């Protein structure tokens, strides 16, 4: 698996072949607070970079989840729909959101390294 990359909308991405696995960052999960509801895109749906691809809700509010990558949704993680609290427990591991068949590999170059993201998150806490 590739090194983890990060987006400005607080998603993480790992790559295996031409498939990207996407979830929300630990920082984003902390900002949300207790996640109590997750809505995921349907398999087979085509999503555009920075387009809405899901919803997470905490006790406080609903937030959109965006995709940092354009392509077709090939898989979604039903376990986080059944147990939304797992998003707080392991946001950058077991609680991945969806997998995408990458359409345009050059989009990966626009993502940040962990060090750059940590700096970005510190400067843009929300």
């Amino acid at each position, binding site marked *: 698996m590739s090194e983890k990359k990060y987006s400005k909308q607080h998603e993480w991405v790992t790559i295996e072949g031409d498939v990207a696995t996407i979830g929300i960052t630990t920082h984003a999960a902390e900002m949300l*607070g*207790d996640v*109590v*509801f997750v*809505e995921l895109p349907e398999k087979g749906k085509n999503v555009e970079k920075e387009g809405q691809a899901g*919803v997470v*809700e*905490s*006790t*406080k*509010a*609903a937030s959109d989840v965006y995709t940092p990558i354009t392509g077709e949704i090939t898989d979604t993680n039903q376990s986080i*729909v059944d147990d*939304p*609290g797992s998003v*707080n427990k392991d946001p950058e591991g077991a609680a991945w959101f969806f997998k995408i068949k990458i359409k345009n590999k050059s989009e990966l170059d626009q993502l940040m390294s962990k060090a750059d993201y940590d700096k970005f998150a510190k400067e843009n806490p929300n």
Partner: protein
Amino acid sequence: MEIEKTALYDYHKSLGAKFVPFAGYEMPVQYSSGIVDEHKITRNGAGMFDVSHMGQLLIQGNESLATELEKIIPIDLKKIQLNQSKYSFLTNEEGGIYDDLIVTKVEKGFNIILNAACKNNDFKIISSSLKNKFKITLHKNLSLIALQGPKSSQILEKIINGISSLKFMNGNKFYYKGKDVYITRSGYTGEDGFEISISNEFVEDLAKELISQGVKPIGLGARDTLRLEAGLCLYGHDINESTSPIEANLKWAISKRRREEGGFVGYKKIKSDLNGSLNRLRVGIKPEGKIIAREGVKIFSEDGKEIGSITSGTFGPSVNGPIAMGYVKLNFSKPGTKVSLEVRGKKHEAKVSELPFYKKSYVR
């Protein structure tokens, strides 16, 4: 307008509070363990809420004050017993609600607890109605601490002698470190608990003592999930200037004598609502799945007609599912009625539900 802070602000900070602006105050929304955890602590143990942003109003006077106040507050203030508390509201000319409040009869007159966002306007309304005949004080030097949860009584008794004998919706004067405090057995969570009115000078001492006895600090986030499970209204959302108390299903809070005799602002609308012209009602709404329907979500009948909207909705940690309340047309208000909720463009099944969602355990 500059944002205000309660006397416990620095203490909250030291306890790991996350703050949000609320009604002109910088208030803790949660502490480090999170809203769900704080909610469960309050249901199973004891939680401490700083509600010092709320208005604490003292109106001094005797029987003639009760007569005057009855013109704007629709309860039987002549019959209320010393140290008894009652839930009520300030009504407007159209029968809507300017604010909901708790009135307690005290030796000097009446104590009234007001919502933070409404307190200055309430003060104006009450002052102008009473026409300077009575001394009115909106306290600036008092804090208000709510201690809520099944362990509240045994813990507070260790600190303030005698409180465990208070009955629900009753108050009394007690002593903390030799100073007067006024405590009522009441709250906004559906649990047994107390609200302690104490001077700003000593509130941190008391808060620290409660925490050292195992009480956890609770923020506004859990306060909202707790009150919604308990079916209690949040002013500005579930009730406001255009909802009548009858529409809001708060008929019980208007004394029988007052319902029959009137003599208070807005009675015309309230009387007509009582006499059959009521056309909508506040009800509990329970989504069937996991979807959370928040304020503003439209409610539809089974055959697709719009019949109302949600006024509060969240995830109820003790119910372990989504809960909401809202207004529906009267003929759809029966518990069990199937409805649907439109969230993000899709309809989701729900049912009209009995309130509260979570059973109370008050000490009577």
